[in-house]
């Protein structure tokens, strides 16, 4: 980061900045911050995700003013929000669909990082922080889904908390400790509400670290190369990236509003409009769409502990990815074979999501087993081997090169450029 000799213009600004250099901090990180000039629209999802987090926090704080965290009252308090509270229906639908939008954006953000190798050195810590944020997001979303105390809330909570009973020896006591009883009940609901309120602020803290870690090496870019030191490869964050991010955000908000106003329940499950009944399990329990791939992995294993281990393994293996990928080239643009495997992984995750929503029997079970196996093969076998075996395309020396030489033969052009300069 280029430390500029920034000085606030107003007298008060100068006075304040000398005592607490907040303005200098904002100027450095939100205005002057040098960004690669070739960032495409896949890079706008960081800003979109920040918007999602803020939306969830604001709507969540408002909903908590009207919600009652008690097993006897929670369900009717949600209906009270929907029917009586002024604009309660709007705020709740924004919050509920906001969770889905948050995950939609985070999946695009993660796959963008996978495609362009943004997790590779020197950005491993950014990636790890991102995965931790993702894990916390899943925890927050799961606990939030329990709060309306509908049938899916209750049985989803039962199934997920029972995952911990698979731990040998201490499983049962851990589960009872999580429940605060012998089954999912009022103590479970109240603690989930407390944690659901806490986690977004933990996420906020991690997001600050995520951005801090990002601003140390700077953004990766579609070409995936290190930027020239002289600054000719970069543009200042403001106004270039700010405007681009805002434009993408507006498009995103149109999709968001489409769900909120025209299909607010399409991503939910109708069983959750039935109050929780501990004696009746719904015929078909499914988690929210964004957790389906992991649910499919869980169900693909005919052994309880094995299924749980594999499901958590599918998430935690991502933490090791910077070291599993042995390729020296970051961007898939210059990795013709990895590019195909990348799209195969995207397809694999989509297939897992699909079979996760289907009953665990017959052909679906078979497909989920194949897809689960491939998911792990991709990370454990293909990623390490491909780095050694793949013949990558020549990588340009700077971002400007492929543009000047109009794409082809940029390596030669890059060399020529070097000689001339």
């Amino acid at each position, binding site marked *: 980061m280029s430390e500029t000799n920034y000085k606030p213009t107003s007298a008060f600004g100068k006075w304040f900045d000398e005592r607490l250099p907040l303005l200098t901090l904002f100027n450095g990180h939100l205005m002057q911050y040098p960004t690669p000039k070739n960032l495409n629209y896949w890079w706008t999802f960081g800003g979109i995700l920040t918007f999602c987090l803020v939306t969830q926090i604001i709507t969540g704080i408002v909903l908590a003013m009207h919600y009652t965290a008690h097993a006897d009252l929670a369900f009717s308090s949600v209906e009270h929000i929907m029917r009586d509270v002024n604009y309660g229906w709007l705020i709740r639908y924004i919050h509920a669909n906001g969770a889905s939008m948050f995950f939609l954006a985070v999946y695009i953000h993660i796959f963008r990082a996978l495609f362009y190798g943004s997790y590779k050195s020197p950005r491993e810590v950014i990636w790890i922080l991102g995965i931790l944020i993702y894990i916390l997001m899943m925890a927050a979303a799961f606990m939030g889904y329990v709060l309306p105390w509908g049938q899916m809330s209750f*049985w989803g909570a*039962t*199934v997920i*908390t*029972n*995952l911990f*009973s698979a731990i040998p020896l201490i499983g049962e006591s851990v589960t*009872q*400790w*999580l*429940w*605060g*009883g*012998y*089954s*999912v*009940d009022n*103590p479970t609901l109240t*603690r989930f509400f407390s944690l659901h309120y806490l986690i977004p602020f933990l996420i906020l803290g991690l997001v600050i670290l995520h951005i801090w870690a990002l601003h140390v090496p700077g953004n990766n870019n579609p070409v995936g190369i290190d930027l020239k030191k002289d600054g000719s490869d970069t543009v200042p964050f403001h106004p270039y990236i700010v405007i681009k991010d805002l434009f993408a955000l507006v498009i995103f908000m149109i999709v968001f509003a489409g769900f909120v106003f025209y299909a607010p329940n399409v991503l939910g499950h109708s069983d959750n409009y039935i109050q929780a009944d*501990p*004696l*009746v*399990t719904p*015929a*078909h*329990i499914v988690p929210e769409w964004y957790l389906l791939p992991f649910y499919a992995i869980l*169900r693909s*294993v*005919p*052994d*309880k*502990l094995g*299924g749980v281990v594999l499901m958590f393994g599918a998430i935690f293996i991502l933490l090791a990815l910077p070291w599993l990928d042995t390729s020296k080239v970051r961007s898939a643009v210059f990795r013709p074979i990895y590019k195909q495997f990348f799209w195969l992984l995207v397809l694999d995750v989509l297939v897992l999501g699909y079979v996760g929503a289907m*009953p*665990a*029997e017959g052909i679906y079970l078979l497909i989920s087993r194949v897809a689960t196996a491939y998911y792990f093969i991709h990370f454990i076998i293909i990623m390490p081997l491909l780095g050694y075996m793949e013949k990558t395309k020549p990588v340009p020396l700077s971002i400007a090169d492929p543009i000047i030489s109009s794409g082809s033969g940029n390596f030669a052009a890059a060399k020529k450029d070097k000689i001339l300069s």
Partner: protein
Amino acid sequence: MSDEINNKDKTTRREFIHIATTTVGAVGAGCVALPLVTQMNPDASVKALAKVEVDISNIQKGNEVTVMWRGKPIFIRRRTDKEVSTARQVSLKDLKDPQKDEDRVKKGKDEWLVMVGVCTHLGCVPLKQQGEYGGWFCPCHGSHYDISGRIRKGPAPVNMEVPNYEFVSDSKLIIG
């Protein structure tokens, strides 16, 4: 030589204080963490609901009632003689979690099967009179139980749990 010893002594002294302070601090932090962690365990009011009394005089053979105990369903089934003999003919070799039917009921009360109606896989409530073994079937992830509540097929690792219970009279049962 004496210098070396002095130096050594000084370091040891400082190290001792360092370690002692850290240890006291760690023990203190542990003591504070204990109530913060154990507050999440089942509390006194939850434990107080640990026993329920059930009137079983109206249950006919081949019928089943479900009662709540500790927030969980308890299946009380009065099995027919045929069901009991079916359960007892099963070879232990065919069972994933081998247990005799005799060990799952009270002596002399062979027709009464009392068990926690919760699938041992991930806690759903199995449906009665379904599945491939004429017992229960869990719709969540496809576990099949026989008429003794023993796991026969599917992801559940063990048989459905038999709670502590006793017959206080011919018509009354206390669970817990």
